[in-house]
């Protein structure tokens, strides 16, 4: 029997690996849109969340809209404006990155087992996915030099934390209004980062963070 939630989680894991291995900005943004869609769909397929209140339906629609349309849209606008096609020189190469991604999955399995949380079935896989996404995001931020890839890494980190919250906390704590606040922060954050990116590009003619090294002691 194919379990819906497992399919979604495996797809999220695949999207993490794909993002680590792709050099084109547009592909990266498409992957992020897909990942956002999967992350916002995941709670609906978790057994605990099967009965939704009317507020919940509204919230999930908003989340789906923000994660799959608004944020990737903002990134798309940023990329077209600064006309950057691909990451030329990553600090860590693409093959090595994918390999690291696989290592991260193994590490996540190990961590999940060591935590001793006695999670049942789906939640264990969810936690593994969450930790992998989180650490994959951090890795992407550290191993790429273009500022826009770092924003994408931040988004992935945030997706990971979102999944982590889903895996660890009971649904009864999650007030939709509070979750919406977190989501709004993320949206505004990406907007602000987009504006700074645009300014960096105008001032330096590039969005490579290698140029950002004047301030130090």
């Amino acid at each position, binding site marked *: 029997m194919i379990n819906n939630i497992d399919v979604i989680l495996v797809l999220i894991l695949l999207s993490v690996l794909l993002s680590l291995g792709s050099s084109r900005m547009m592909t990266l943004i498409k992957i992020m849109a897909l990942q956002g869609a999967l992350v916002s769909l995941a709670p609906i397929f978790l057994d605990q969340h099967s009965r939704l209140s009317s507020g919940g339906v509204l919230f999930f629609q908003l989340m789906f809209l923000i994660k799959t349309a608004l944020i990737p849209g903002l990134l798309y606008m940023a990329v077209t404006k600064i006309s950057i096609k691909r990451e030329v020189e990553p600090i860590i190469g693409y093959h090595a990155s994918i390999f690291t991604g696989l290592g991260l999955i193994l590490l996540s399995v190990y961590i999940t087992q060591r935590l001793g949380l006695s999670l049942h079935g789906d939640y264990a896989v969810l936690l593994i996915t969450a930790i992998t996404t989180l650490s994959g995001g951090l890795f992407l931020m550290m191993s790429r030099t273009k500022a826009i890839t770092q924003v994408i890494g931040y988004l992935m980190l945030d997706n990971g934390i979102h999944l*982590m919250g889903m895996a660890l*906390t009971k649904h009864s704590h999650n007030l939709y209004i*509070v979750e919406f606040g977190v989501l709004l*922060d993320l949206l505004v954050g990406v907007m602000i980062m987009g504006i700074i990116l645009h300014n960096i590009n105008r001032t330096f003619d590039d969005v490579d963070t290698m140029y950002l090294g004047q301030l130090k*002691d």
Partner: protein
Amino acid sequence: MLESVFLLPLVVGLLTLFLPVRLGRIALVVTALLHLQITLLNWLHPFPSNFPGFFGSAPAGLLVLLVTSFIFVFISLYGIFYMKEQEMQSEPIFIGCMLLFLGTMSMAALADHPIVLWIAIEATTLVSAPLIFINRSKKALEATWKYVLICSVGIALALLGFFFITLSMDHAGLDVPLTFSSLNTAARQLDPVWLKTGFIFILIGFGTKMGLAPMHTWLPDAHSQAPSPASALLSGALLNCAFLGIYKVHTLMVLAGLGAFSGSLLIAFGLFSIVVAGIFILHQPDYKRMLAYSSIENMGVIAFGVGIGGLALYGAMLHLIHHSLLKSSLFLSAGNLVLGFGTKMVAKCGNMVRLMPKTFVAFFGGFIGISGLPPFGIFISEFMIVLGAFQTGHPVAATLFIASLILVVAGFAQIVTSMSFGPCQEEILVQEQILRVVPPLALLLTSVILCIWMPEALYQTIINAITVIGGTIHG
């Protein structure tokens, strides 16, 4: 209602983004004054909260709110006259973001729900980012990028920390609303392992924002590149809000019987911050960076005091108040210096005592204060922290603390003397103006007054904030 404290600046801030500059300046000062008034009214007769699950007036939050509101009044007054001299590319954005910044900080101070606190603190990062890169210079852009990225990642880790705290509730089978006040009453029942994990993540997350070493790397850049009124706010108000987040969780830890664990972590991070700041202040070529490192040092002092507890905890709270007053005053004076000398390099400034005598009084007074000399308040607070450290049996930490403070003062003194009396150019670019000197002087004066006479309500609030976790004034 309680929420008006932060709704007012948020709404006015959004409006001023679209107002003409002149009207925006008026709106800035009027809102600042109104905000102080509402805050004071809330002190006298606490307003009921319309959303009791999310907001409430806890004593520590009230303290941070009052400090923020008070210094904001003077910073906004100074800001108006500063903006007249300094060409700004988009002043409405600057004014609007200042007000939004005030609003989000007030929200953080009043938050009772952990995630609401998190949302407010992340929002402070976002609305203060435009303040830093308002002039769009290369360095300012670099500073903003580091600020936004490092703080966002740091704060994201704090969110993870709050999830762990929720997990510690679930693990213990506890069913109370997720607010600090109700968690505090049920602290003993929380699962200790997950609570500890949560505290570590929150300390690292909010510690990044508070400027504790080694997560402080964004701070000197952002504080030195922002226009001076914004630096004064960042240093005098924002760091306190991040500290408040750590303090609330530390309170929870102490009530859960894990005070020794969180306390020793705070002591370690505090001491390390003071030492790092001391090393970087020596021979610092940029005086705004020097002030920024001094903020790191003072945040270290506060973390150290809170970690020690007892009398030192009272000292730490006093330190928070006086550091905000003195450091914002120093940054405002530094703004006058930047206008006058046209540079942030210590080597290119000099002879301040003759060229800018009024600013000299304010800057030198601030230096005396921040070095922990009487008659300013930091003298008392640092004295209490040292005393508390010896009393509670931390002689090694206390000695290290004193030694690092001496290092900081030495570095600071060398820079200030060379700027005040050293040789230099004969002329200055912008003459100093009495209106730009009064706000920093007023902030200094408040620090002196608070040493001689502290209002009963203020004293009582500090005591209320610290007695829960064993803080006391009677050593």
